[in-house]
């Protein structure tokens, strides 16, 4: 009872399941959007730069040493583009996997079968069981709040998947994400 009372008193401020994680400040936490070939609209692996088509959303969160790594806007978007309120407005072609804002929402072209490894390839950042972008540490992956036991590159990008990758420290994952309308 005493424990319950203490918990009640100390926990009045926030739901117990919510805790903030700071965004990393060092350069390794702010990554470029794409390699030169993607910015130029050239073929990237099996993906071509195109336009149109419906898309669905996948949300990915990245952590290194228990700090947030931002997934930038403009991954999979060829230049030129415009930005408005941190959102990228493509003016030419985009790839089947792209980000238009820095919220971690990957827009996947409907009908495309792709994995998280494909997304990192378009982004131009390394990913593996012991590598997350510029960070070298064991990578733990969660999909829908559940531990992903295999190689994080093989995680399929399915509609409304919620993916968390953590390198060098455990971060309790969100099981779900509320996607904006249209995705």
């Amino acid at each position, binding site marked *: 009872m005493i424990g319950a009372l203490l918990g009640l008193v*100390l926990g009045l401020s926030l739901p117990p399941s919510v805790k903030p994680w*700071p965004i990393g400040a060092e350069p390794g936490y702010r990554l470029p959007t794409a390699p030169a070939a993607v910015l130029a609209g050239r073929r990237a692996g099996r993906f071509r730069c195109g336009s149109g088509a419906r898309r669905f959303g996948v949300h990915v969160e990245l952590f290194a040493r228990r700090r947030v790594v931002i997934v930038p806007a403009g991954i999979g978007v060829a230049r030129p583009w415009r930005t408005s309120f941190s959102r990228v407005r493509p003016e030419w072609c985009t790839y089947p996997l792209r980000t238009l804002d820095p919220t971690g929402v990957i827009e996947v072209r409907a009908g495309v079968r792709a994995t998280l490894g494909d997304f990192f390839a378009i982004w131009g950042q390394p990913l593996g069981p012991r590598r997350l972008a510029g960070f070298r540490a064991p990578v733990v992956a969660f999909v829908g709040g*559940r*531990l992903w036991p295999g190689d994080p590159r093989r995680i399929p990008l399915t509609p409304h998947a919620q993916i968390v990758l953590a390198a060098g420290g455990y971060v309790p994952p969100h099981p779900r*994400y509320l996607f904006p309308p249209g995705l």
Partner: protein
Amino acid sequence: MPAIVLASLALPGLARADADPASDTLYVGRVFLPLSARVSPQLARQLAADTLAAEQAGRPVRVALIASRTDLGGVPALFGRPTAYAAFLAAELQFVYPGRVLIVMPQGAALGERGRLAANPDVVRAKVEPGVDGLARTAIALVEKLADVHAEPSASGPLPSTTPAQVHVAPTGTTSKRAGGLPAWGSALIAVGALALLLVPGIWVARRRAGRPTEPAP
């Protein structure tokens, strides 16, 4: 690695990671507009211009307009709790932007700063106008007040009894004392007081029972 896996299995129900779109946007941007509804372009431009002017004047304010649960992505539980979300967002941004961050939700407005909640009379008393454009108009008015250091001090009486300072989020890896908020020792004091309220009557009853004369043996 095994420890991490073990921890993940032990805490399956917690939802803590970073998933609110506003923090990802405000780490470099000055304004987060709702994803769930469209702010009129004129108001959006006005808000952008005001926050730019505030920054150029050396009094930066970043703004998040939250119109619905969707705008909070993975932390929808914070919708309707502007003070809690202001503290949450300030804690997320603390290493990349320690300045002021203004939250406007239909339920109210709140201000965070340096990873903590900040009490400001204008923000606490703000009445949020209805609709998504109302959020923007409220934010514009507050940014203009917050950015103006020459403004007359507010003289409309004391703060309401429920100030944002009563809500606290302990940011990861930081001390828990906050400017203008309830520090950790305050929470502990409340806890001790509550325990005392609970225990004192019990002790009193127990002592009375112990002090009662026993009946003599026949």
